[in-house]
Each structure stands twice: as structure tokens, then as C-alpha cells.
């Protein structure tokens, strides 16, 4: 299905795409981007990798089962991190004291950075698993 040309070009491209996706996710609070956009680029990377290199490159180490667990863990962590803030909001109290930091720094704006990463993981894994299921019919 894949020709050497595609394999070579994707081989060149993938590392950049990986870095780019993490950049979008990690700098979501500072520049355009965020969890969903970064996650979809990351998901596209994973799909591309699977498509070109087959299941044995990335898929061998990260089986569908494991990825599913990873994304569920991310969701769970999201629910707990944000859930406490929601619950505290109902009571008009402050949630976990997370410093907002200096605006403009990478480590700033409290929960937004970790939440972006968690959303990114969920989105990337979901896209990757859905695409794998469509293409191969199993994980």
C-alpha cells in the first residue's frame, strides 16, 4: 500500500509533526492552539505512523488496550482535577491552590496547561484508535 517515496517522506516529516503537536498542546495557553488541536495533530501522527510503518513500530509497544487505558486514565485525571474545582465553585470556595504563575511563561495559568495535555492525550488516542478500528477492524 505504501511506496518507498511515501515511507521516506513520512520518515522525514514525522519527527517534526510530533514536536509540532506537542508545541501546540504545551503552548495552548500562550498562543493559538490547545488540547484539541494539538491532540488531533498528534493523532494524525500516530495514524500516519501506523499506516506507513505498520503495527510493529508504534503499535507493538502501545497496544490498543494500553492506549485505551491511558486515555481513560487521562479522562479520569481530568475529571478529578477539574471536578474538585467545579465542586469548590458550587460552594463558593477556592479549589486546590494552584499558582497562576507569571502570565506568558510556559508554566503558568494554573490548571490550563495540564488540562490541555490531558485533553490532547484523550483526543489523540481516540482518533488513533478510531482510525485503526476503521482500517483493520480490531485494535
Amino acid at each position, binding site marked *: 500500500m505504501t511506496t518507498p517515496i511515501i515511507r521516506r517522506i513520512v520518515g522525514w516529516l514525522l519527527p517534526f509533526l510530533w514536536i509540532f503537536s506537542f508545541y501546540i498542546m504545551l503552548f495552548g495557553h*500562550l*498562543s*493559538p492552539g*490547545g488540547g*484539541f488541536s494539538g491532540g488531533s495533530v498528534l493523532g494524525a501522527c500516530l495514524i500516519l505512523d501506523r499506516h506507513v510503518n505498520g503495527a510493529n513500530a508504534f503499535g507493538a509497544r502501545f497496544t490498543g488496550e494500553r492506549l485505551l487505558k491511558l486515555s481513560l486514565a487521562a479522562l479520569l485525571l481530568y475529571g478529578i482535577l477539574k471536578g474538585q474545582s467545579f465542586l469548590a465553585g458550587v460552594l463558593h470556595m477556592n479549589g486546590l491552590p494552584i499558582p497562576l504563575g507569571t502570565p*506568558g511563561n510556559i508554566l503558568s495559568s494554573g490548571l490550563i496547561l495540564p488540562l490541555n495535555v490531558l485533553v490532547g492525550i484523550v*483526543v489523540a488516542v481516540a482518533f488513533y484508535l*478510531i482510525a485503526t*478500528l*476503521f482500517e483493520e477492524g480490531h485494535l
Partner: protein
Amino acid sequence: MISFITSHYFQIGTVILFGVGFMTLLLNNNLIRKIIGLNIMDTSIFLFFITIGYTGGREAPIINGAFKGIDAYVTPIPTGLMLTGIVVAVSTTAFALALTILFYERFGTIDLSEVMDSRGD
């Protein structure tokens, strides 16, 4: 009338796009085309939201450096809402396509009318 078209051309475009999606949905029995129609409809709504959020001459709501006053930036709300809307649309599409695959496996066709006519109700 003409002034309405020239001043609202973007909104009119999105509404017509909505109609295109709607018609695709109504006219075709092919499931894939129906799903495409739904997606066109969704996209037109996203574009409509974006037109609400656009104001000529203002910057994107990313406050690098000094804050230039609230009149210098476009509103962040429609953009943010549409991020959520897109995710929802993607999820629905993924499910609809998966369902289409199963539909094809069960009925050997992706034409909704062929299957519906087989039962008289």
C-alpha cells in the same frame, strides 16, 4: 435588498451552505452522502458562529505584551464554542461512519431506501 446582500454576504453564504447540506441530506439515500450533508450543515453553522465573532480591524484575542483595551480584540467566545462544536461533530461523524460499515455488512448496500422499502411501514 442589494445593500442587505453586500453588508451580510458572509452570513448569507453560510445560510446557503446550510441549505446545500440540508438538500444533500434530503435528496440522497446513500448513507455516506447523507453523512456528508450533515457535515456540510454543521460546518455552515460553525462558519456562522465565526462570522458573529469577526470584527474588522481587530486582533485575535491573544494578549501578548500590553493589554490594548477591549476594543482592540475580537470576542473569544464564538471561537471557543466552535472548538467544542467541532469535536462534537467529529465524534458524531465517526460513529455514523462506523454504523455505515455495519450497515453495509448486514444489508450489502449503503442505500437507505432499498432497505426501508423491504418492510411496509
